[in-house]
């Protein structure tokens, strides 16, 4: 696993934990996400945008193959 992917994996796990904490623990318990918890919820959302992208690379294999088949040339 490359550094970028490892970093992405760590960010994804951290984001999921934060998201679960904010929605399932804070949200369900107090029926409101505010103050620091609202920040955690927002940060978890932003991290979730970045984490899986770093972890899984940029172009899915299926998409790459589809473009290669249509254009008849290999992508670099």
């Amino acid at each position, binding site marked *: 696993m490359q550094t970028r992917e490892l970093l992405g994996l760590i960010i994804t796990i951290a984001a999921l934990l934060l998201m679960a904490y904010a929605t399932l623990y804070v949200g369900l318990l107090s029926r409101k996400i505010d103050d620091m918890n609202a920040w955690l919820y*927002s940060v978890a959302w932003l991290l979730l945008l970045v984490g899986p992208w770093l972890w899984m690379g940029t*172009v899915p294999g299926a998409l790459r193959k589809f473009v290669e088949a249509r254009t008849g040339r290999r992508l670099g």
Partner: protein
Amino acid sequence: MNVITVLLIVLAIYVVAYILYGRTLLERQVVKADPKRLTPAFEKFDGVDYVPANKYVLYGHHFASIAGAGPIVGPAAAMVWGWSLPLVWVLFGNIFIGAVHDYLSIMSSVRHGGISIMSISENVMGRLARYIFLAYVWFALILVLAAFLSVNASLYVATPTAATLAILYMVIALVFGVFVYRYGVSIRVASLIALVLIILAFIYSMNVPTVLKYGDWIIVLALYAILAAALPVWYLLQPRDYLSAYILWAFVALAIIGGLLAFTTGFTLPTYTSFAAPGAVIGAVAGTPPATAKIAYFWPMVPLVIACGALSGFRSVVGSGTTSKQLSNELDALFVGYGAMLTEGAVSSLAVIIPIAVAWNFAALEAATGAPVAQTLLNVANIDVAKTPTLGGLAPAARFAVGYGLLQALAWSKVLGPQTFEALFALFRMFATWALTVFVLTTLDTANRLARFAWTEFFDWLRPRSEPAYKVIANRWVASIVAVLFGAILAYPEIYVPELGKSFPAYTVVWPAFAGTNQLLAALALLTGALWVYLLLNIRGWRALLVMAPALFLWITVTLALALWILLIVPYLPLLYKVGAGTVVVVSLVLDILLIALFVRALLIVRRAV
């Protein structure tokens, strides 16, 4: 006239327009779309912006990028002219101007490697036109970013449950995309799971608000806009917009079914009230003489009120920006461009104008249907019909939500029983509000992605001179950050306006000018498209005229409307607005005249050559 007659006429017009004007004329005879020709999504595939998309995904994207408040608030406000004139403008503008403008923006961009309509103008009007156009659009997009940062933040402060839902919706879309693209899960199964999760998120969010201050939301949303605009389209944009399409279809389908069920109901709003409405509808400040004076003439002022429902310049930037880079087949462009614009018109006509026209006068509606309208409005929406006898007493967004809710409640209570009227009104009013807000966040990141494209294209002159400098300036993260930074600077601070005795976000000082500049952009984009058809596709005769005539009509209409706006409204605006919005409109008009001169010159050159 009753609901079903108007509804069927509108639907028939859309079907005929799509087949005859869209497919037969534009696709087959003018553009001559070819399914075998490779599109830029394949030719220039980069895995970030140039990525082929399924036509339903792209349809969702093209629609959702713009359809926030646009097709809803404008027509709701325009009901001051009665219901027939706004409906005619939506149908005419939609079919002959807006949808043509969208389709030609997409197709001209596709034939030019996915570049924007602004850059295409170089091929038909010269290099100067291109840079004027690019700068104009970039500044307009900064304004859009500022406005949508502010609108989003204000919305989340006012309705904190919407913030919870918006975030969860985004996460569901992201997970959906990863499972479909990365793990090859069938779209059908993934869609079903995603829709169930969205319903659960909706229920959860209604009970759990997320509370942050206005300024804090601006920071969070600015970071979101930077990230979302720089990430690959397949990762977030495509899956999210695909799911958004379901919400949209549900919204329009319910409007049609509601209209069919409530078929005997008549309209309580007059067909026609007056050709000149009070100036407040075109942005005159409350308390000033033009606000109540009858100076808002339906023509030429209507484009300043009804934008996206009929036509919108922002759509040309989307069409030739994000949409054209994802189109996988030239034949998809008709459904994506022409079709999405007709759908937007259907939202305006079927889900906004008809319901509001039905529910306009509460007492008349109660008398005609026997439904407990007054009591329901008091119980659910806290509206006292003694003080607010018509929908005209509500702000346009509320006018739409209440109108949509009442028509749906009338329709479905016929099936489920009259005792369900109040519960149905509460449910559909909430659904209408949600449908209004769900696309607002989408517009934010698409606007930033488009600002990034415009920025990159603007600096292409630097490339042959200094490749390293160009690489820094055109870097997608740099381009994303610059635009959002300017947008946030306009959205974050508040300015005190002494004449109104209140503070407003800084961008509002120039915002009143946006409606006009957006419509002016539509006129210029359509003129560019018409010139592209005439000069580069070599189309002549009545076919060329069918594209050219609406373009010139729109240009005359919007230019005249803006000139009148400067004369009638600007002198009475507070000083800061006078300087801000007034300057923007004057500069826009100067650029407008310059571009029309370049347009005429291009036509004359061709005539001489022939």
